[in-house]
């Protein structure tokens, strides 16, 4: 029983002490330092490609258990605060290490995917996820295939429904946002088409978007 729950959350990459901490957090969140737990999870997510795609489930589980146990939401708060800090520093992270940036984006998307509020996605994260995708659509990122393929694939593997919902929101943004600059609209359109094309930019699209777009 214990072993299977370890495997479920893919926490083998942590040292034993941390694994124990996480397991306790999953069962009895009131008894551990949730800020530390949060820290541990976020840091690992930024390093470990695989974990960044699994962390959402663990986090969701802890949030649920804490709500049931103490009616509190301090883990979620710590997580969101930390995530926001990482998000704000994302450009720096990207410059420092593409690998970390890729992990960050997968992690944010994973959290967005799993952490629901009354079964609805966290609206507060829609814009940040959108920003990350925007970033991916920028010329310098698009040239970096590694960045693209990895994230694109990962995003697609996530809950398809969630992705669709988000893209509806993006599309609505495109259609409804009047004050979106023409550059903004172009980039939005690009992402939509990009995704439709399986995250590979076709030659035509490449010509359309990149012959005119300047940095």
């Amino acid at each position: 029983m214990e072993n299977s729950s370890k495997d479920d959350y893919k926490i083998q990459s942590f040292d034993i002490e941390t694994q124990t901490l996480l397991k306790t957090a999953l069962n009895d969140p009131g008894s551990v330092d949730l800020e530390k737990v949060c820290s541990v999870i976020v840091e690992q997510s930024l390093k470990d490609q695989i974990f960044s795609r699994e962390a959402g489930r663990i986090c969701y589980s802890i949030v649920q258990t804490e709500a049931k146990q103490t009616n509190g939401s301090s883990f979620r708060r710590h997580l969101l605060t930390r995530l926001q800090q990482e998000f704000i520093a994302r450009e720096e992270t990207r410059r420092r290490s593409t690998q970390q940036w890729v992990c960050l984006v997968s992690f944010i998307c994973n959290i967005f995917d799993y952490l629901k509020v009354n079964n609805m996605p966290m609206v507060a994260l829609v814009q940040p996820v959108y920003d990350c995708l925007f970033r991916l659509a920028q010329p310098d990122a698009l040239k970096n295939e590694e960045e693209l393929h990895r994230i694109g694939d990962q995003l697609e593997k996530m809950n398809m429904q969630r992705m669709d919902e988000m893209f509806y929101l993006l599309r609505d943004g495109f259609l409804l946002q009047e004050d979106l600059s023409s550059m903004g609209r172009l980039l939005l359109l690009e992402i939509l088409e990009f995704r439709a094309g399986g995250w590979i930019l076709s030659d035509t699209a490449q010509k359309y978007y990149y012959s005119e777009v300047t940095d």
Partner: protein
Amino acid sequence: MSTHQKYTSENDAKHDENRNKGPSRWSSCRKRGADGSLRRSHPNEEENKDQRCSQRPESFTTPESEGPVSRVKNWGDEVEAEEMRSNVHRDMHRYRRRILASDFPQRDRKISSGSSDSRDSKDSPAKGDIETDETTLLRRQKQIIYGKNTLAYDRYIKEVPKHMRESGVHPRTPNKFKKYSRRSWDQQIKLWRVSLHAWDPPAEEGSELQQIEEIDLGEIMDFDFDVECSADTETASHYPVSNGASLSLQEDSFTGTPKKMMKTEDAEMA
């Protein structure tokens, strides 16, 4: 359209006047124009450039962050607000269903006057007559949450299950869906919170939480903890109650008044 401007301290006084006017002798010192876009450092069109401004060292200007700083709350706050909003909507749907259901007399469930249910015929609003304004509901819900986040409330609900509650004796959470004036609602909340104090945890030596709550009531206490209290009474009463000692004290609308109000109310209720 909101402007996102950062001003040096010199410009603060002129802030409001100059916000929407064209270039003035002050505007060359500003990093951003009225539309939020960054100004180039040496605009040619501004004849009246104040020479002093252009030589001001970098450190005078508020450090630039990612872009125009909007009033973005942190994600933790935003998600909590989302959660509260969707909870309120869910509560409203449930409440509506209950009201409608209570209109049918053939229901098995007894509707007794002793129940703390808001379906009591004398109490329940006409079908269309419930509070639906989101701002109001959210504000009321927040006040209720502050009350429920207390140790007293926890102890209360453990001690007295709902079906055992008697009206008049046991505190009842005000019904946020009923139409009340602002004053009436606020008063109900205040009285509810006061009555919950009867379930405050027993005072312990060195329990700061308990001390502040007791002082709050303005009661003259029989001191078990003489020394600490007499010092604290002076200081505590000068500070707004919401100094973070307990969640129950983080209120916006009536932090100062309750202390005074409660004294007279206690006298009346006694």
